[in-house]
């Protein structure tokens, strides 16, 4: 449960930093940060569920979290960076 929570948190954070006012961020700092977070998430998932199964679970979770984040109402507000 702890690993799953951590994994979800990593994916949510990894995708959140990619979003800049509804578009993919062009800032390399955020792109690198997102890549690192998602890679750590993928490794954690593979370590927890096995490489093959973990990869599919990770991809499924990224898809689900990404869709939900993109459709969430709070993201209409403009992000100021």
């Amino acid at each position, binding site marked *: 449960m702890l690993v799953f929570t951590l994994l979800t948190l990593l994916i949510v954070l990894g995708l959140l930093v*990619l979003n800049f006012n*509804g578009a993919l961020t062009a800032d390399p700092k955020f792109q690198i940060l997102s890549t690192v977070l998602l890679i750590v998430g993928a490794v954690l998932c593979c370590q927890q569920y096995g490489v093959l199964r973990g990869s*599919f679970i990770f*991809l499924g979770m990224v*898809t*689900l979290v990404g*869709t939900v*984040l*993109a459709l969430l109402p709070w*993201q209409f507000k403009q992000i100021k960076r």
Partner: protein
Amino acid sequence: MMKSKTIKKLYTLHSWVGIVTGILLFVIAFTGAVSVFSKPELRLWGNPEVRSLPDLNYQKVEDLVAEYAKKVPDHYREEVMIFPPSVNSYTNLTIIFESHHGDPNVELKEGQRPTPIGAMYQFDPHTYELVFEKQGTMDEIFNTGASGFAYFLVSFHADLHLGRPIGLLTTGVLGLTMMLSIVTGIFIHRKILGQLFTFRPQKTFSLMLTDSHKVIGVWGLLFNSVIAFTGAFLGLAIVVLVPAAAFVSFGGDQEKLIETFTAVPEPVIQHVEQPTQIAKILEHANLIDPDAMEIGTLTVLGYNDASAIAFTNVIGGESVATQLAVYQGSTGELKEINGNFGRLEGASGPVLDLLFPLHFGNFGGILVKVIWGVLGIGTALLPLTGMMLWIERGLNSNSPKYSERTYQRFSKLVLGSCGGIVIAVFALFPAQMIIKQGFGIENVTPILGYIFYPLWLVITVAAMIWPSEKSARSAIFYLCAAVMLSIMPINIFYTGSHVFNVINNGHYVSVGIDLVMTALGIYLLHLTNKMQTTSDDQTQNSQLNPQLQGGA
């Protein structure tokens, strides 16, 4: 860069494929999303008697096989199948003896294949007393099988209850059209990555539809591609691919082709009697992977012979695909463990092994099922938002291709057929419980058809003839919410399982389904009320505006 003319052509193709197949795609995708939970979750909900199955005494099973093996003719012992009591197959402990070559006393005509025959014995899993027995052909024996709304839903998703080959061909072709829509969609929405998070519901309804169609499509690109490919394969494999491969390599003999690549080779019987270690094998299979979800059927070939082999499916665990564990029957030692298509050379075996779990989402417990179920709803929303977008653009266009009435009629058809299937699917829950528990009818499946199809048809027709589309939409949403909210009280009424006694009876799955359905029903009710209020406000504003303009 692709020419704008080509993109325009691809856009037209994307639109028309979506318009023609959209409703069917929604139906298949939505029922598929619910079917992800068919085994064991929905079966547990619909069959209260299987909610708490006892642990099996493996030695007792071995003794029962030995006892009943003496009661059947020798040739019936060619294959022995043991089904532990399970939510997914038989709820009683079931032992089947099968003769592959039929009755040896019956003379066969030239070219005629023998009909496999056998005997089935079912035992109460608590007392191990015989509760049912049947002899006949294997087709007759396996007809004593699954029933209920979970099975009804899965078979509808697989072939729309049209059977082979038409049903499977239809769903297979729909998988192909979905792949075509995905490919054309990628080319026409070129700024895919840039629009990953673009969603502007506060602007116009049309823009909201465009954004949600893109967001769901882009994020779900990989998932939808996998589902479309595996769905097309599963639909077309049996009716097109296997017959074609058999025609090329096995003189048209499809059974021989399947046996060659999937079945465990039969042992050469040595006629040296040695007891088969059934208890030891079952115990070992249960411990192969502590993460495994379930042990399937144990099959023994050459029972009580020194050459006997036994094999069983292990579903779940670290490997995505179902594993086949093969044992030496006389010693109970594990010989090998590999995928069902492990005997195929090269990459094709592992790839084929992956197709099934990736489509069904049954490789990682409830976590993967929830992900697959929600993403499946997303897959269903793609054709729906696409069709709504086509209608919206047509209605708002300065030079529409069709009349306003045509767009409105199509909109009502989409609303009725898509809303109707959602209500009909959720109505299967109370229907199953009332028929089975209220009327005491065991074979529920045939009766469910008399509820499911008329309900779907009535809602579709009602939406078509309803004077206002807005009120038809509200009525459908309210009805859907009412059906969802009825699920928990009906379960409590017939089974007594609820959130306050769930710790004592352990019925977490059925109570969990009740809670999810209730939460969804409440949310749908809230959403419908909100839509109604917004719609009323808009109507009032449009009535006030001309007066204000007139006053000014």
